[in-house]
């Protein structure tokens, strides 16, 4: 391998990406937008009060008042007809009728808030009878490090390494094959190894700033903690990026049309999107599905990232997933070297 050739190929691959505004937007802009939107969507907030109604009747007022003292209930007093309609339409989770024997609770058990409403009403009435208005305080879990957004940001970085690594090289390589550029390169004294190494290099350096952007964004905007080693995090990003780029090159090593490579990459990425642990913890999975999840490189990227961000992890804690990833990358590169076709 001649380093100057590798360098030139890398430079060309890099510039080809950098000068294409659409590619830059979809790899840098889009994931950041996703981080914003998901961040807002999963902002921790106090639970909304559960809407319930008391039917107008003699003696209903006392019940109404004791329920009103509960902060977690939104109570209103309604006529029997209106109350029935509100329950039927799902505007309230529970309806309370007061007759001579006391209050009767009515609800639609298929509605998830019904259970909660029952519980809250029971507690409110019990507390009122004991003359205590105070509710047991319900705490909202909102300390940095344990919110969903904290879990999500490392997952998004992982997904992004996956997407950028694979789409970035896959399409581009096949495009080069379709437009006869690979054949043109083949008839020069450029070696396959020089071309592939340069290509891999030029593309995998691209994923680093992008992953760092999401990371910074998560830390600065959502207060996602960074408790572990920066070095280790960088290493996860670099090695993860290299592994996914390697998978992309492998996928593109034989595909002859854009449609083929598109389908192939979707097929490879879909299991990782679902089982790779970006959106939910795949440690909770069981049986064969779990084994599959454990074999996915994304699982290990995400796990390693969470170890160094959410916990005070260092290189010593993540060397296992890292070596798994690096080995995967080397394997893909070696396979691509064998399988790669110029035409």
């Amino acid at each position, binding site marked *: 391998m*001649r380093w*100057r*050739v590798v*360098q*030139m*190929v890398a*430079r*060309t691959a890099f*510039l*080809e990406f950098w*000068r*294409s505004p659409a590619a830059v937007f979809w790899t840098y802009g889009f994931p950041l937008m996703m981080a914003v939107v998901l961040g807002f969507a999963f902002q921790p907030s106090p639970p909304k009060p559960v809407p319930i109604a008391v039917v107008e009747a003699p003696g209903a007022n006392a019940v109404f008042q004791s329920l009103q003292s509960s902060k977690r209930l939104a109570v209103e007093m309604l006529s029997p007809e209106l109350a029935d309609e509100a329950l039927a339409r799902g505007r309230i989770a529970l309806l309370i009728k007061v007759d001579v024997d006391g209050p009767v609770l009515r609800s639609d058990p298929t509605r998830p808030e019904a259970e909660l409403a029952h519980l809250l009403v029971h507690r409110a009435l019990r507390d009122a009878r004991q003359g205590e208005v105070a509710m047991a305080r319900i705490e909202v879990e909102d300390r940095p490090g344990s919110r969903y957004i904290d879990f999500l940001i490392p997952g998004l970085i992982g997904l992004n390494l996956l997407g950028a690594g694979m789409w970035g090289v896959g399409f581009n390589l096949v495009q*080069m094959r379709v*437009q*006869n*550029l690979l*054949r*043109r*390169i*083949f*008839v*020069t*004294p*450029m*070696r396959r190894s*020089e071309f592939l190494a340069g290509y891999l290099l030029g593309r995998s350096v691209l994923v680093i700033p992008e992953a760092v952007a999401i990371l910074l964004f998560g830390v600065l905007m959502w207060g996602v903690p960074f408790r572990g080693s920066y070095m280790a995090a960088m290493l996860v990003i670099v090695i993860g990026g290299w592994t996914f780029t390697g998978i992309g090159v492998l996928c593109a090593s034989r595909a002859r049309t854009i449609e083929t490579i598109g389908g192939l990459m979707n097929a490879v990425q879909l299991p990782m999107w679902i089982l790779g642990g970006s959106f939910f913890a795949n440690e909770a999975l069981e049986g064969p599905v779990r084994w599959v999840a454990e074999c996915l490189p994304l699982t290990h990227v995400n796990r390693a990232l969470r170890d160094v961000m959410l916990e005070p992890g260092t290189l010593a804690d993540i060397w296992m997933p890292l070596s798994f990833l690096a080995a995967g990358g080397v394997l893909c590169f070696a396979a691509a070297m064998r399988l790669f076709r110029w*035409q």
Partner: protein
Amino acid sequence: MSSSAIDGVPAIELRALRKTYKLRRTETVAVDGLDLVVNRGEVFGLLGPNGAGKTTTVEICEGLTIPDSGTVSILGRQWGQGEDHAIRARIGVCLQETKFHENANVREVLSLFRSCFDQGRSVDEALALVSLEEKQDARQKSLSGGQRQRLAVATALLGDPELLFLDEPTTGLDPQSRRQLWSVVRDYQAAGGTVLLTTHYMEEAQQLCDRVAIVDRGKIIALDSPADLIKSLAAEHFILIDGEQSPSDEDLLAVPEVVAVERQTERIVLTVESVRGALPLLLQIFSARGIEIDGLSTRHATLEDVFVDLTGQSLRDGEDQ
């Protein structure tokens, strides 16, 4: 040129070359038992209609396509015998159709290709060879067809090759771009280079090539210098007479110099041994019959006529010229 240019072996030697393509049930014979020797220092043209097998032949020479049978020797070496890298370092290739990186400019494309040659000419030299200095910062999309093609030729010249392959280098180009490329080829030849080019433009073959092989259906049906190919025709001149009416074939063939008569709509084309000898007699026949002549022209035979004579088909195949 490196010193090995003077060693004895021909630049290209093809023996009994055969290549078939199988697509589902149908089998296409692209190259059908082709023999060819291209000597050092000559510009050799493969002339033939679309689908004749020119590209397949050239790509076999370039090591891009593997023949079913036959032998290929490029600068005295064979593909697939551990010398591929050495051959590639000494040849320059311009494929029939290549698009370079969309977002790369001319200089960057050349730098990329330059990097893989251990020896060769500088990017600036290559730019000057094809007169693209002013366009060196332009990206692919802003180049005209002629400029793209010149860039493709420049990439082929970067390694200072002994042997240059040009597959339809001027197809689709305007006459001016075509002439520019011809002069690049002539300069390359003047510096000692050997060229194998394909074309379906007879004018190009006539202007540029020292020798031409006329290819049809994967076979070489004639091979000689353009001038000698034309001389091989029974008669080298044509008289074209336009008019609504015309004398009968017998009357026309009665003129001793007339070799053949071809009738087109409102035009007859006479193949004659000499225009000066045939024309007065022909005019006499027309005036004796009282037939009016709307137009009259003469032309010298071209390689196109050689092709028509050999195959009974037109070379251009409905293509623009």
